[in-house]
């Protein structure tokens, strides 16, 4: 079954036939977890790095932010049977406009906070396709853990 993981959403699954996909991503970022041994996969698709700008909104929708979304995402994966030891993390997205002033460094800040949070959980990011200005989509095959990135008409395996 195909599950679309929109911005500010997460999905974890232990059904090998499931495909998790994102819509086109701008500055938002997808953190992809897969545990081959346990047959579990998931995507957290967050928009903003830190919930400090709006704790109320984080309370309503923790997956909008990296810092409130990732703990929830990890808990959901572990609850399904994933293991920290065998789980792999990848990250895709975080595009940003051309901005020499760095005023809009949202894509880059999303990447930096994602690295910090995953490192803090001892789950370093092993693969990534991030930055630049192009839109991306992600597709995760829960059964195999194979992950594809679609970027301007081309799709390749991460």
């Amino acid at each position, binding site marked *: 079954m195909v599950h679309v993981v929109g*911005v*500010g959403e997460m999905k974890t699954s232990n059904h090998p036939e499931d495909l998790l996909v994102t*819509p*086109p*991503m*701008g*500055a*938002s970022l997808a953190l992809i977890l897969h545990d081959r041994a346990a047959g579990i996969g998931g995507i957290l698709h967050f*928009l*903003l790095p830190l919930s400090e*700008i*709006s704790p109320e*909104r984080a309370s309503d*929708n923790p997956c*909008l932010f990296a810092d409130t979304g990732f703990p929830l995402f990890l808990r959901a994966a572990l609850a399904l049977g994933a293991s920290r030891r065998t789980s792999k993390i990848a990250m895709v997205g975080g*595009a*940003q*406009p*051309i*901005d020499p*002033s760095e*005023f*809009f460094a*949202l*894509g880059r800040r999303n990447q930096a906070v994602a690295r910090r949070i995953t490192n803090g959980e001892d789950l370093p990011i092993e693969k990534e396709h991030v930055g630049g*200005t*192009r*839109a991306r989509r992600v597709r995760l095959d829960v059964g195999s853990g194979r992950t594809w990135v679609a970027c*301007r*008409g081309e799709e390749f395996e991460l």
Partner: protein
Amino acid sequence: MIALDAVINDALLLAPLPPAASRLARIAQDRDADISEVVTVVRYDPELPSQLLAYANANRSPALTPLTHVRDAIVCLGIPKVLEIAVIEHLGTPMMEPIPAYGLQEGELWEHSTAAALAAEILGQISGDAVPPASILAALLHDIGKLVLAPHLEPKATMAIARAVDERGMVYSQAELEVVGFTHALVGARIAEIWNLDEQVAAAIRRHHELDTDHGPIADAVRVGNLVAKTLGRGLGDEGLNLAADAAAYHRLGISRQDFEMVCAEVLARFHEVDRIRPHAA
């Protein structure tokens, strides 16, 4: 190069704005517009009263009594929102069409435009008088030129734009200008002029990719709305986020980086409102 006149001739073939939308556009320019004038205009449109009531009630708490009078719906929505709904009623279906020349799938131009308009509306709520109400209409129509220009773009033109971006690092709109001779922004502004919309709206559409110059608060609000929509992944197309961002526009509007992020979050949270009036592709 493509002949601008040929493209503008096609713009003339776009159905003109219906009388209600044209009159609402003129009324909406006035911050102190009389709601009775809007009610009169809306009542003579065959579809608009029921759409406004449906939209207003859909966004109303279920605990409240549903609105049954169109005046109440107009008061509830506000004049800029009424105008936006009137324009979407007219343009929604063509805006739902895929635009392969710009890499936009079915519905993506509509999503991008309505997200930008919603961002302009929210900016107005944050910045108050700094963002004129006409910004919502300008944001809604800022990419309308793509609709008319796209059929003139042969594959070799879109490939030349892609090459200029990929190989020479050009900003997408500059590559479009180099290859085509003008941009979708100019075509969009001409359409606004043909429809007799406020000249500031037309100017904002024309200037939405021109940076480093103050073209007024409507143009600034359109730039912010455009970037918010792209940040959220709405209508990225081949351009993606390959647009120059203009921090000066934010400073002029009094918007901080935190405000920008909150506008993005608010548009995402409220997009279901505009999704209720999503038309079907033809």
